[in-house]
């Protein structure tokens, strides 16, 4: 997989460093962060809207959004900046086992990007999203029996469990390394050696991603019978009047 020389960054080396942090450096580019928080929003919304037909349009829209986001993330995992790329964080089971073993001994390896265990959680979340979106689409279009709907639910619950594991891992790693990983996923910055930083945040790509998602939501709402997934008669009347820009309201 040395075909990424055209990408905006240098050599892909696993950034294991034990040197104390020096300065804030950019680790997560803007597309990675926008992808992450849109996934959080979409999964939470889709999970909460699963049980009612009133919210069906919202549920389906967020499911398609997750599928699109993962498709983008796979492409960005090949073309993106250093720590966004699969080649820098996908490790074998031995690396994961070693990381966990050393972690349990109380002296965790520090990784500027994803640590091997976190990377495993990320792959599981990406894979589960593919399964959930495919089974959801199949169910929505009546292409198979009830068992696909059951599989959809089971995969979604497994995903919720993985999200829990991921969050627990973030909390534990934040505490062990004395670095706020949640803030890093917002600002993109961590403490580190200046040479380890990513040069460009690629904001244009992030803006395009966000615009694509918002545009898709708007289209979905426009195509809906009442203009909104859960419109009460009163909001439907309001929307008839000034229907613009309500697509991203929910």
């Amino acid at each position: 997989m040395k075909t990424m020389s055209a990408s905006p960054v240098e050599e892909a080396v696993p950034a294991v460093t034990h040197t104390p942090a020096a300065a804030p450096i950019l680790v997560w580019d803007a597309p990675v962060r926008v992808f992450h928080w849109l996934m959080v929003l979409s999964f939470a919304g889709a999970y909460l809207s699963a049980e009612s037909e009133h919210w069906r349009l919202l549920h389906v829209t967020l499911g398609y959004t997750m599928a699109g986001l993962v498709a983008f993330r796979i492409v960005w995992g090949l073309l993106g900046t250093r720590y966004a790329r699969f080649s820098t964080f996908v490790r074998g089971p031995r690396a994961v086992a070693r990381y966990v073993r050393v972690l349990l001994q109380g002296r965790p390896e520090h990784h500027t990007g994803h640590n091997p265990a976190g990377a495993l959680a990320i792959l599981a979340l990406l894979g589960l999203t593919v399964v959930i979106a495919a089974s959801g689409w199949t169910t929505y279009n009546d292409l198979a029996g009830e068992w696909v709907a059951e599989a959809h639910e089971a995969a979604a619950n497994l995903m919720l469990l993985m999200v829990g594991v991921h969050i627990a891992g973030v909390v534990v790693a934040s505490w062990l390394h004395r670095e706020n990983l949640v803030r890093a996923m917002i600002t993109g910055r961590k403490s580190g050696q200046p040479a380890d930083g990513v040069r460009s945040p690629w904001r244009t790509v992030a803006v395009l991603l966000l615009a694509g998602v918002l545009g898709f939501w708007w289209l979905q709402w426009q195509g809906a019978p009442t203009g909104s997934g859960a419109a009460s008669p009163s909001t439907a009347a309001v929307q008839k009047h000034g229907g613009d820009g309500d697509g991203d309201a929910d």
Partner: protein
Amino acid sequence: MNLFSLSATFPRALAALTLACAALAPAARAVTPAEQLAGYTAQAGAPASPARGQQLFTNKHGGEWSCSSCHGAVPIQAGKHASTGKTIGAMAPAFNPERFTDPAKTEKWFRRNCKDVLSRECTAGEKADVLSWLMTLKP
């Protein structure tokens, strides 16, 4: 190198999951609408009333939707989902032979849709009423 092993593993994992799901899928026991009606009536301990069923189906019960909001006032033809606009096949068994032949599916959708309309689950008697009314609808 890891990407290669990843792309090789993923389809296999998907196939395994599909197989696992297929193995877990309960053998669909096909029944007739009449058998399901008999089951609900026996559970309720009282005979079904088609008139009550129609009333339940078309009434909004103080909420935003009735069953008819998505299925039509007389569900002998395809309905339209009130939120998504998606087409829903006719509910009356005489017009859609697939209806009420899979008890698990019937139960799942009574549970979901009664909550959507009545904000609670339907009783066996209410299900019997609705089904008995749907069965009176003939071409």
